[in-house]
């Protein structure tokens, strides 16, 4: 059960043009900011929105083929979809919600209910089948929605921000369960999210989409280590600086030079982790190679550390301990020196 798709949709000023392949049992996360076209992509795959161009095929069978005039309506596609706010039918019991798909696909009432009850059991809602969706907690409703999507053993599972409507603690629990169910699911899964943690925890591969186009693809770890755009860098909490490699130094596009541990050449990206940036009140001795004067533009506490946004020739994020922050007497506007070891700087081709 493999998905091969190239989707082109024009929506006002935005043109979504994304190609993706998802193998059997694989989970692909589509990560991107709001308005990037992620949900549009998912709606096309579901058959809810006709594409303006391209082709969608599952197991070699075309679902959409604009050039050939093929379009399989949504209700004929063997897929399951989980929506952001679950969209369980409020007038049906939880059991009947899950039995809805088997019923419309031709199962008898008894068989549909039996299949639904089995799935409610799998997601841990065996006792709640008689309730109305309005009587479920957010996490329970999302589990019921997952059962409803998976009950027919679909070829393709689509998840549209499945965890974003949940509070932090519930999200953790539901994410772990979702991960387990996805591992057992034999078909292809496409997960749309704007949360890199969801992508990392749930997906085998990540596709980063911005302004309707793929800007980066890779494993979650790879994307987190080597972000290609500011959006991804901000998501994973890295400072990203474009520049040109000149041996053991990178001349930054925004001005300034970064010393690096391994030789680099041509257009490169420099990524610096906030925890590897040290702050000093004055230029430290021992002439470290990467020391830049800066000004604290903003500071937000993050647990026991404070994340400082630094403004200067080289804009950086720096994590310092709350103690150090107090001892340095830092406040927005304070002048500081930011120091980074060359070995802590990651460089990769642009």
């Amino acid at each position, binding site marked *: 059960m493999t998905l091969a798709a190239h989707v082109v949709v024009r929506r006002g000023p935005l043109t979504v043009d994304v190609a993706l392949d998802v193998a059997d049992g694989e989970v692909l996360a589509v990560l991107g900011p709001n308005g990037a076209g992620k949900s549009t992509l998912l709606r096309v795959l579901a058959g*809810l929105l006709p594409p303006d161009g391209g082709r969608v095929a599952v197991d070699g069978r075309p679902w959409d083929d604009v050039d050939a005039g093929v379009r399989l309506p949504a*209700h004929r596609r063997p897929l399951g979809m989980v929506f952001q706010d679950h*969209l369980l039918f*409020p007038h049906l019991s939880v059991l009947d919600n899950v039995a*809805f798909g088997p019923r*419309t696909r031709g199962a008898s009432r008894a068989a549909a209910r039996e299949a639904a009850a089995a799935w409610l059991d799998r997601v841990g809602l065996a006792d709640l089948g008689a309730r109305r969706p309005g009587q479920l907690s957010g996490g329970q409703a999302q589990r019921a929605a997952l059962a409803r999507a998976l009950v027919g053993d679909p070829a393709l599972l689509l998840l549209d921000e499945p965890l974003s409507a949940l509070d932090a603690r519930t999200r953790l629990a539901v994410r772990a369960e979702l991960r387990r169910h996805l591992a057992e699911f034999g078909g292809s899964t496409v997960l749309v999210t704007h949360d890199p943690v969801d992508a990392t925890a749930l997906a085998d591969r990540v596709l980063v989409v911005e302004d309707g186009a793929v800007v980066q693809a890779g494993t979650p770890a790879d994307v987190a280590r080597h972000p290609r755009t500011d959006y991804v860098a901000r998501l994973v909490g890295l400072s990203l600086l474009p520049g040109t490699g000149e041996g053991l130094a990178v001349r930054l596009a925004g001005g300034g030079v970064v010393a690096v541990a391994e030789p680099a050449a041509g257009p490169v990206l420099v990524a610096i982790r906030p925890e590897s940036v040290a702050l000093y009140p004055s230029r430290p001795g021992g002439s470290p190679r990467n020391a830049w004067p800066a000004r604290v533009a903003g500071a937000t506490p993050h647990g026991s550390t404070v994340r400082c946004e630094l403004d200067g020739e080289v804009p950086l994020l720096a994590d310092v301990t709350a103690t150090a922050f107090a001892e340095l007497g830092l406040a927005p506007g304070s002048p500081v020196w930011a120091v980074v070891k060359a070995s802590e700087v990651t460089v990769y081709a642009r």
Partner: protein
Amino acid sequence: MRRERTPAPLLVPAALAVAFLVLPLAGLLVRTPWSQLGTLLTAPGVGQALRLSVVSATLATLVSVVLGVPLAWVLARSRARGRAVLRALVTVPLVLPPVVGGVALFLVLGRQGIVGSWLAETTGITIPFTTAAVVIAETFVAMPFLVISVEGALRGADVRFEDAAATLGADRWTTFRRVTLPLVAPGVAAGAVLCWARALGEFGATITFAGNFPGTTQTMPLAVYLALQRDPQAAIVLSLVLLVVSVATLLLLRDRWLGRGAAA
């Protein structure tokens, strides 16, 4: 919101409006010959008129639901061109004087009418001055209430539930039956009650198109009008019956459907 004293320029007209709306009804209750109530209510013709009213209003409501709900769906969901014109046409009976509606129905369905003459020639059926004519006149006047109510409910319903149904294998007809219709059921019920109440009180179109024949076309409002000229006491009692039915309708609408619909 902070509650403040109502300013006098608003309070006085508001009080007058209440008096204006309530006093006539109070007058009706005051002048009701309570001691003769039993005899007047059981007088021949009263039960007949009431039964005819209820039966024809119920039939008109059924026809309105069967035809009006699909029309409301078309107005709310289809992307056909000319929907604005269609909606305007549908709502004309809402503002049209009912007697004009009666004349129009007569011109089309009457013995000499465009459709009526053809119907009489081919099947021998003539519609005017029959109970069927009462139902048709009431449907003409009352159906727009149902259509407007259901269209509003459909517009307010979350269409993403229909998307969800499609991803679960439901075609559009199944989605309509199993998802859309149950979701707007409170709106359909409220519209049906409004429609029924309007049909029950219908006078102008009925008397024009169906006439005033006891037993076949004389509904309660017609009976009230006629009684007022012969026997004012009987007119009061008949009016009281209609008032009770109206208030009961209102209560039903508020508590059973509007309340639940607003809470859902």
